[in-house]
């Protein structure tokens, strides 16, 4: 038997630092969003990312290096537990899969894992349109599907992930009323559908959990399944969120918390270890 005694310790290197690190003074909103998303992933979760998913990819790697060393990351639904040099220019190309433990074949294997309710519990969704019940749209803008005003890329894996029991985490770096809308023009990712029990009545487990934007974090009120403010990013007001949203966001009674500020250690990891080329800023049009 040739197991190295250091193998188990390796993934949690630096674990001591992250708990005691003070809040950063110079964090930016991309880092705040990444930290907020990272907190959603805990030891034992399995997570994968799709195309152009710089914020989720950075968040997975941050979680692996801090509170969730036993998170299982299936990079681009292809490379298991890879060791990329840094976040590359594509989140669905070979540089991300460096030193993978396994290559997962899509037709034969990936969907075996994904469709099985026990594996790949959480999925991060980037949708062109997202509505108050957490339904996503990457298909078409306009009233008639076959006469679209705007043809979007297409549902890809979202049309599956929304329906097969996953917990959905939406992220959007550009919170605006055309992106976060009252009703999507077309449902290409099933959220809470018409709200209330409608999703469960169809036998669908899972569903939208959180929405993380450049302004705030939102969840869904458990009875109506209506989008609800959970925390404001520092410096953002309820009014700013409301003005940027295409419907009236629910606001819980009492004080609204602030989204946790990244620590110095987290900022260091994101900027200098995980994504030194700043690929995450591409999501902000930079």
């Amino acid at each position, binding site marked *: *038997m040739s197991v190295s005694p250091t193998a188990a310790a390796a993934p949690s290197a630096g674990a001591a630092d992250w708990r005691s690190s003070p809040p950063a003074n110079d964090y930016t909103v991309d880092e705040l969003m990444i930290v907020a998303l990272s907190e959603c992933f805990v030891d*034992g979760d399995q997570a994968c990312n799709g195309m152009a998913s710089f914020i989720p990819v950075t968040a997975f790697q941050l979680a692996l290096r801090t509170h969730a060393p036993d998170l299982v990351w299936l990079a681009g639904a292809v490379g298991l537990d890879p060791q990329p040099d840094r976040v590359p220019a594509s989140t669905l190309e070979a540089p991300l899969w460096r030193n993978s*433990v*396994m*290559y997962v074949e899509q037709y034969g294997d990936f969907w075996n*894992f994904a*469709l099985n309710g026990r594996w790949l519990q959480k999925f991060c969704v980037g949708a062109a349109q997202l509505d108050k019940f957490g339904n996503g749209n990457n298909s078409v803008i306009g009233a008639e599907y076959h006469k679209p005003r705007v043809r979007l890329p297409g549902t890809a894996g979202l049309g599956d992930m929304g329906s*097969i029991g996953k917990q959905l985490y939406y992220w959007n770096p550009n919170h605006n009323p055309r992106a976060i809308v009252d009703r999507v023009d077309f449902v290409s990712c099933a959220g809470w559908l018409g709200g209330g029990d409608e999703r469960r009545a169809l036998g669908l487990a899972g569903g939208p959990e959180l929405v993380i934007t450049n302004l705030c974090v939102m969840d869904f009120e458990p009875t109506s399944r209506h989008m609800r403010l959970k925390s404001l990013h520092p410096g953002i007001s309820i009014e700013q969120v409301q003005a940027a949203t295409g419907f009236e966001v629910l606001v819980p009674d009492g004080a609204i918390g602030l989204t946790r500020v990244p620590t110095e250690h987290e900022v260091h990891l994101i900027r200098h270890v995980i994504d030194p080329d700043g690929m995450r800023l591409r999501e902000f049009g930079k």
Partner: protein
Amino acid sequence: MAQVKLTSVAEAMTLVGDGDVVAIQNMATQAAPMGLVRELIRQGRRDLGAVCLVGGIPIDWLAAAGCLNRLIGAAVSMEQFGLCQRYRKAVEAQQIRVEELSETALNARLGAGARNLPFLPTRGLIGTDLIAINDNLVMLDDPFGGLPVVACRALVPDVALIHCHRADRYGNVQYEPTALWPDLGIMPKAATRVIVSAEEIVHTDVLRRNPDRTVLPGFMVDAVVEIPWGAHPTSFNPNYGYDTGMHLAWTKAARDDDATAVFLERYVTGPANQVEYLDRVGGASRMAALARWEITA
């Protein structure tokens, strides 16, 4: 993904309970997880259901030891060594009930189990007598107006038992480039729990050299055990061939109740561990001959 799954065979096999449905990798004389199966017998598990594509000597030993009361599979045969006689007698005595499926129907049942679908269809079996006697198969019209199909109900085994060439302590499983039988392709993905024996436990960095050879991710595996020569007396290509002498000794013993009991005590329940087992079946020189595929007559 540092959750350690490495354990002892005795500890691993406590994941199997009396009455469980146990999917067992095997093809006639190939690739059976024999070290795990022997431990099942040693621990005296009862009322098991076995799932196999084409089961051979592991099914016959489990039947001989009284561990099985049902079987779901396409065939039971040791090919050149003939039918499994203890299994056959137990079926004829109605001690084991058989759900006999064609290969596509078994794959469909397991495939539906893996993918959390209520059923998958096949066009195999149509016209045979195997559909009417099986509650897990039903003819279904094509909603698009084409030919009907046989809907095969999802099967989720409680446990899958797999043998592999190498694994790491986290349960990531690798195979050498070789023929991959359906058991490996779908059984562990359908089962609720997965127990793996490996010829060798290696550092994860060894697996990273050939990620295309990894066939099961650690997150699907519940326990992994190191058992060198763990498929003996079946073959494990390319490492070693099947043991002709051992198969012949079994087919001779299986003709007689007393000889069967002596055989099982000597080779299955008697040896305290894999080292003792290997000593009793011929030790290092015999294993070396098997590695040269010399015992294939």
